[in-house]
């Protein structure tokens, strides 16, 4: 069975370019504002969307996403709102996944969560704090729902372990560009390219790079060696530094347009 995400990577590979994957926490900056962000993503050229499930203890996230998630949580975002945002994103014709820490899935029920992803036309779930060693219940649930299970690997992941982790990945492998948490940075770590090359030796699953990617130049650089470029904090920064939701959405749209050029320039 092939998800919309699987089909996307077939398409971008045939176009010899990387896919642009954009992240926004559900309910940020508001429930309605989140839909406006998703519209901007869809209209300006994002290839896939990650809907974040805001969580109280986001150890993998730097201050930008942690604070955005907290704002959304305080406004009452829960599983219902996450699936609504997912349904909205997929209704715009964009392959979409949910990114969530493990406990909200466990609390909701792994099979029920996977089924809800599928019934909202979602392609899969990224689980940043679920090592494959603990993932058996989730693997069974996601396989039975026909959705992708996307795990994160890091520069510290050994070659032997890369084989083990990527064997459990479908959709794409999420390669963390550096040892650290999410957040915009001035440059892409040199370790990212090495990691992607090591991953490519052990799997044919597409590889997307996240953590610290925020500009057209970054996107171009990463697109030269990876199948996908993931951007998150930069959109939140764009929203936060604007004076109004309207100008924030405009800034998001402009950034997407730039990044969409970047992912097409990498292999020129």
């Amino acid at each position: 069975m092939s998800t919309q995400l699987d089909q996307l990577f077939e398409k971008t590979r045939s176009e010899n370019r990387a896919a642009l994957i954009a992240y926004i926490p559900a309910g940020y900056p508001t429930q309605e504002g989140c839909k406006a962000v998703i519209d901007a993503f869809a209209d300006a050229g994002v290839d896939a969307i990650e809907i974040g499930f805001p969580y109280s203890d986001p150890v993998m996230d730097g201050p930008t996403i942690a604070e955005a998630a907290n704002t959304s949580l305080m406004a009452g975002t829960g599983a219902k709102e996450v699936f609504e945002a997912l349904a909205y994103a997929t209704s715009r014709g964009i392959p979409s996944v949910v990114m969530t820490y493990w406990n909200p899935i466990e609390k909701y029920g792994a099979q029920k969560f996977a089924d809800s992803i599928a019934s909202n036309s979602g392609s899969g779930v990224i689980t940043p704090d679920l090592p494959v060693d603990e993932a058996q219940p989730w693997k069974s649930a996601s396989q039975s729902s026909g959705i992708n299970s996307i795990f994160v690997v890091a520069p510290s992941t050994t070659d032997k372990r890369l084989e083990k982790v990527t064997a459990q990945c479908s959709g794409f492998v999420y390669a963390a560009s550096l040892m650290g948490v999410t957040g915009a940075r001035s440059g892409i770590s040199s370790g990212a390219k090495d990691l992607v090359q090591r991953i490519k030796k052990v799997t044919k699953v597409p590889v997307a790079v996240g953590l610290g990617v925020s500009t057209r130049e970054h996107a171009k650089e990463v697109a030269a060696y990876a199948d996908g470029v993931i951007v998150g904090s930069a959109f939140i920064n764009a929203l936060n530094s604007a004076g109004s939701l309207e100008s924030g959405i405009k800034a998001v749209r402009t950034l997407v347009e730039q990044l969409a050029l970047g992912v097409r320039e990498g292999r020129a």
Partner: protein
Amino acid sequence: MSTSSTDTRAGHFGQFGGRYVPEALIGALDELEIAHNAAQKDPEFLAELAHLHKTYSGRPSILTEAKRFAEHAGGARIIFKREDLNHTGSHKINNVLGQALLAKRSGKKRIIAETGAGQHGVASATAAALMGLECVVYMGEEDTKRQSLNVARMKLLGAEVVAVTTGSRTLKDAINEAMRDWVTTVETTNYIFGTVAGPHPFPTMVRDFQKIIGEEARAQVLELTGKLPDAVLACVGGGSNAIGIFYDFIKDANVRLIGLEAGGDGVETGRHAATITGGTPGVLHGARSYLLQDENGQTVESHSISAGLDYPGVGPEHAYLSEIGRTEYRAITDAEAMYAFSLLCKTEGIIPAIETAHALAGALQIGRELGKDATLLINLSGRGDKDVQTAAEYFGIPL
């Protein structure tokens, strides 16, 4: 390989424990596990640690029989294991000396730690000073106010104290921030975890460094009374002092092991930190255990007058021991704990930590239930110097 008798699969205690962390930390946790297992079998390491216990922190800690306090506990025989007399004032030093020695052996130059009440932070800063390591302690901003004396102690010892301003600004958020630091600095830094929670190998490793409390106490009680105690009591936040004193008694099926959790305003009010009594299974801070959470799996803020117990999680081995019925847990309210705190001051001339006062309140209950023929062993886990301000405010003593 594990040294535990209750580990059912490496790093797991039944359905609890495990590792729920970003992949970036897996290598470091593997390394730590290997280093710990090797050290536990290395006579040189064990001798070095034993030497520090004997000449630096003051082990073995003594037993004190509390006859006047016992009059209020149904006349039961009450025996304290005096971890409050350790250097730095609590059981926390036992674990920290072990982990800091491991860091040194692994060639790490920097240690980080989280702290709630500040006792683990002070112990970490102490060990870092002793061993020449750089030390950064993460502490919730709320706790830096409640425990300002301990903040000053850590600074005097040369540590950097980072006040954490995210989330509820307490221990849970300090752990998040320390984890974020560690993800970034893992090559040069060891994270010295303060309790028997967190991802494997921390629950096992911290237990291994704390079980000396029970090993000593079991022998000491046998020597003093000629028999095993009827019950062993300890307060439980994350659960390190409790596992420490329980562990050597797990094999003694007739000895009741009772953990006293922080009931805050009362478990029924929702304002408490009694994780096993009032929580549900889930994942927090890298392990499956009990936690306080809402219907979306979001961690709920805990409440306790005791900063050291004010934590919405608990160690996975406690969750497992509770599930198999080997241990029992009860909640003690703030008011009950403060009554016991005051009683101990006035009957025995010992000012306990407010954390420890929860175990003392438990002793008053259990003693009355079991009567005068019973013997209770209580872990007097910490002294109350750090709590003088909180207690003075509570009892209306002008400062």
